[in-house]
C-alpha cells in the first residue's frame, strides 16, 4: 500500500532536503499511444509540471503533398490518422472538390457516409479498449473491441483492397463500387452491432473501478475547451453542442436523423469523454441503418481527369472526424500541384490542453487523461 505523499513545502519547512522529481515518460511507454513523451515534474505523486514532447514521427506530409499532384497525395492522407483512413480521405477529397467543382453521384455520397460511420465505430470501439487498457484492464476489453473492429476492417478490405490504408475516396466519388453482397454483409454487421454495444456497456459502464478512477479526473471546463479550439467528442464531453455533421451538413448528412450526445458541462472529466463515445456509437449505428436502407444504384464517380489544373483559388474542406474537426486547406496556383497544403489535425489541437488537465493530479491519472484525449501520433506529427 502506498503512503500519502509527504507535502513538499512542509518538509522543506522542517529543514528536510527534498526536491521535485523530473521524469520522462516515454517515448515508448505503453500508455503513450505511439512515440510520444511527457516531461513530468512530480512532487511526490502529484504532477506539478507537464510538457508534452512530440515530433518523433514527423514525415513532412505537407511539403511532400505540395510537390506532387493532387491525386498522388491521397494515399498519404491514409497515414495521418491510421485508424481512420476513410475519413481522412474524405476531408481531403472535400477540399479538392471545392477547387474543381465536381458533382458527386448519389450512390457515392451514401457510400461515403457508410464508410465514415463505420470508421467512427472502429475508432471509438478501439479507443474505449485502449482507454481501459490504460486504466489497467489489460487485454480483455481491448480484445473484445478488436474482435468487432476486425469485422469492420474485413468489410473495408473487401471494398477497397486494404484493411487500414484504404485509399478509397477519389475526387468526385469513390475509386470503385463495392463488390456484390457487400451491402448485405454490412447490414448484417450493423444489425448485430447494438448487441455488442450492450455487452460492452455491461462490461464497463458500471464498473466501480472505472468509475472511481475516471470520475472527477482530468476536468476540462467549457470555456477552456472552446478557447483552446478543442473539437469532436472531447468538446461535447465538456458540454458544447457542436458537431460538424449538423453544423456544416457536408455530404448528405442533412438527410439522416440522429442525435448529438453532449453533457451538461459540469465536469468534462474522463468518464464523460468515455461515455460520449459509447453514446456516439449508437448514433452511428442509427445513421448506418438509414443509409443502408436508402442507398440507390448508380454511378460511383463523377467526371474528373486524373491529373487536373484547378484555377488559382483556395479551399478549406472539413469534416467531423472521429477525433474532431479534420480540415484540409489548399491553395491552388493553376498548376497540377497545390501551392500550399495544410492539415488541421484534431489530435494535435486536442492535445494542447493535456497540461491543463493533468496539473495537480496524480501521475497515474496522466496516463488515463492522455488516453481519454484520443490521439494518434501519425496525425499529431504528420
Amino acid at each position, binding site marked *: 500500500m502506498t503512503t500519502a505523499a509527504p507535502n513538499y513545502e512542509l518538509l522543506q519547512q522542517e529543514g528536510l532536503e527534498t526536491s521535485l522529481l523530473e521524469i520522462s515518460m516515454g517515448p515508448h511507454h505503453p500508455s503513450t499511444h505511439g512515440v510520444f513523451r511527457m516531461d513530468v515534474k512530480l512532487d511526490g505523486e502529484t504532477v506539478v509540471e507537464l510538457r508534452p514532447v512530440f515530433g518523433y514521427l514527423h514525415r513532412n506530409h505537407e511539403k511532400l503533398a505540395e510537390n*506532387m*499532384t493532387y*491525386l*498522388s*497525395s*491521397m*494515399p*498519404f492522407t491514409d497515414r495521418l490518422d491510421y485508424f481512420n483512413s476513410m475519413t481522412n480521405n474524405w476531408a481531403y477529397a472535400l477540399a479538392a472538390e471545392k477547387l474543381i467543382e465536381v458533382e458527386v453521384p448519389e450512390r457515392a455520397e451514401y457510400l461515403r457516409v457508410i464508410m465514415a460511420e463505420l470508421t467512427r465505430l472502429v475508432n471509438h470501439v478501439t479507443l474505449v479498449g485502449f482507454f481501459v487498457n490504460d486504466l489497467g484492464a489489460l487485454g*480483455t476489453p481491448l480484445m*473484445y473491441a478488436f*474482435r468487432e473492429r*476486425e469485422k469492420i476492417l*474485413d468489410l473495408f*478490405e*473487401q*471494398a*477497397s*483492397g*486494404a484493411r487500414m*490504408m484504404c*485509399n478509397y475516396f477519389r475526387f468526385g466519388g469513390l*475509386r*470503385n463500387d463495392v*463488390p456484390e453482397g457487400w451491402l448485405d*454483409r454490412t447490414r448484417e454487421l450493423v444489425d448485430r452491432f447494438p448487441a455488442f454495444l450492450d*455487452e460492452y456497456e*455491461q*462490461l*464497463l*459502464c*458500471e*464498473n*466501480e*473501478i*472505472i*468509475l472511481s478512477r475516471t470520475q472527477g479526473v482530468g476536468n476540462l471546463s467549457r470555456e477552456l475547451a472552446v478557447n483552446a479550439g478543442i473539437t469532436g467528442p472531447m468538446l461535447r464531453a465538456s458540454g458544447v453542442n457542436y458537431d460538424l455533421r449538423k453544423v456544416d451538413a457536408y455530404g448528405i448528412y442533412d438527410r439522416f436523423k440522429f442525435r448529438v450526445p453532449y453533457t451538461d458541462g459540469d465536469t468534462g472529466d474522463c468518464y464523460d469523454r468515455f461515455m460520449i463515445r459509447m453514446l456516439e456509437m449508437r448514433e452511428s449505428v442509427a445513421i448506418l441503418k438509414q443509409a443502408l436502407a436508402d442507398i440507390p444504384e448508380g454511378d460511383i464517380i463523377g467526371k474528373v481527369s*486524373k*491529373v487536373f489544373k484547378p484555377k488559382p483559388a483556395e479551399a478549406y474542406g472539413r469534416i467531423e472526424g472521429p477525433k474532431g474537426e479534420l480540415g484540409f486547406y489548399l491553395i491552388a496556383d493553376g498548376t497540377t500541384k497545390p501551392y500550399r497544403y495544410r492539415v488541421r489535425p484534431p489530435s494535435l489541437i486536442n492535445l494542447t490542453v493535456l497540461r491543463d488537465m493533468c496539473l495537480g493530479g496524480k501521475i497515474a491519472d496522466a496516463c488515463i487523461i492522455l488516453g481519454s484525449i484520443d490521439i494518434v501520433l501519425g496525425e499529431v506529427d504528420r
Partner: protein
Amino acid sequence: MSILGGGIFKGMAVTLRNFVGSYFSKERFITTNEYSWRPESELPQSIGDYPKEEGEQLSDTTTVNHYSRNFPMLLHDTGEPMDTIRCVACQICERECPPQCIYIEKSTEKKENADGKPQFYPAKFDIDVSVCMSCQICVEVCPFDAIVMNSQFELSTPDRFGGLLVRRDDLLKSNDYYHKIHPQEAATRDERMAADKAAKEAKKKAAAEKAKAAAEAKAAAAEAANESKEDTE
C-alpha cells in the same frame, strides 16, 4: 449503484459468458480466421494441402479477395511476354508514384506490340517493393491498362536489396493470370478496353468515310462543272 462491486460482477458475467461461449459457439471459435466470410471450400483445408507442388504459392491458388492488392505487375496479352507487353514506357506512372519507387528506361527503338503497331517498350522497368506502398495510383493513371495490382503476398527473401527490387521480366504476368486473381475487375477492364478500341476504330472508319465522301462529292462537283461547261459549249 446498488451494492458495492455490483458493476464488477456484471462485467464478470460478460467475461464468463464469452469464456464459456468460446467453447460452444462456432462463430466465436473462428474469430481469428482472417477470411471467415469466404466459403469454406475456398480456404486451404489443412496445412497438408499446401503447397501441392514444390514452389507453389498460396497466393497463386486462392483469390484472396476481389480487390486485394499487394504490389503492381505488368500485363502482357497472350503470347511471348516481351512481344505482347502493353506498357509503352510513357513514364506517367513513374512520375505519379507517390513514394517514387518505379524506375523506367525507355527503349531506343520501336518494336511491334500485340496489335502489330510499332511502339516503344521499357528497356528497364524496376519496382522497389520495399518502398512501394500498394496504393494503386500507378494503376489508375496508366492510360494503356498496362499495370495492375498483383495479390501475391509470399515475397520474403533473404536478399534485402536485390531480392526486393523486382525487375521487368519478373513483373510481367499474362492477362490470363490477371483474370485468375481478379476475375471481376479483369472482365470489366477487358470490356472497357474492347469498347474503347471499337470506338476508336469506328471513329477512324467514320473519318475515313467522311474523307471518301468528301472526295466523291468533290469529284461529282467537278464532273457537274465539266458537264455544265460542255452544255454551254
